């Protein structure tokens, strides 16, 4: 949709929203990929494990910044007529209700992950890990949001970019599913099963 008659500031806002959204997608893809590398205990010469962990954390922070920019510029843009409510209540906007709603959900999942990471010392590793797994929901919801909310304005390159992101995460997830990196997982489970005397439901 071309807005030839729109004021410059509005165009800037509009392009920033879409740009920041694309950057967020790429960054989030990298973050998810690094998270999977982390669980695979990946390391190579010149690439220690703490590098994976550090990059994952730092890029996640940058992702949240770009995501914030994406959300703020989208809300204040007069063309979209989104109130702040749309940013927090999913499916409450008039503009592309469904696809935008998905974006709201994805953003809130990521915010939850961010907050629990900050509060990790208080909530304990088990709760933290469960919330962290929501990343596997946030990422695809974000991808679908991107394809659904922007299709009419997008050229082939965004579509190609999205495909590349999907390919990367898809490959990483499939690889991760096939590999168990915790050497104690099986014997620990076997012992637990042997000493579990709770009544069967």
């Amino acid at each position, binding site marked *: 949709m071309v807005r030839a008659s729109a004021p410059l500031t509005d165009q800037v806002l509009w392009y920033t929203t879409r740009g920041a959204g694309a950057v967020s997608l790429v960054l989030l893809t990298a973050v998810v990929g690094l998270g999977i590398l*982390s669980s695979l*205990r990946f390391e190579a010469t010149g690439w*220690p*494990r*703490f590098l994976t*962990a*550090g990059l994952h954390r730092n890029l996640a922070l940058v992702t949240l910044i770009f995501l914030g920019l994406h959300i703020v510029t989208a809300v204040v843009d007069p063309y979209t007529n989104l109130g702040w409510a749309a940013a927090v209540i999913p499916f409450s906007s008039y503009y592309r209700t469904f696809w935008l709603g998905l974006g709201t959900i994805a953003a809130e999942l990521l915010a939850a992950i961010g907050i629990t990471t900050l509060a*990790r*010392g208080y909530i*304990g*590793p088990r709760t*933290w890990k469960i919330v962290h797994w929501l990343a596997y929901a946030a990422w695809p919801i974000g991808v679908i949001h991107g394809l659904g909310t922007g299709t009419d304005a997008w050229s082939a390159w965004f579509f190609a970019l999205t495909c590349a992101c999907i390919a990367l995460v898809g490959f990483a997830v499939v690889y991760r599913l096939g590999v168990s990196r*915790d*050497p*104690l997982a099986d014997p620990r489970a076997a012992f637990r099963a042997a000493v579990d005397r709770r009544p069967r439901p």
Partner: protein
Amino acid sequence: MSAKAQLAIDRIRCDGHALCAELLPELVRLDDWGYPIIAPGPIPDHLLAHVQNAVTACPVLALALKRAEKPAR
């Protein structure tokens, strides 16, 4: 003067990710199976920042800084 800090480890949480050994080789080395062996005793002041890094970096929160006499290995 405050009591010296000690590095404590929860052996059940520890899964052998070994980031601590990467970030704190002065105090942590790995056994033959990739699990950390921590040097006993109080932490030297010049290493406190690195110890804090290692504690934060542990993916399963197995490490903790304790201000007590309880030793850990």
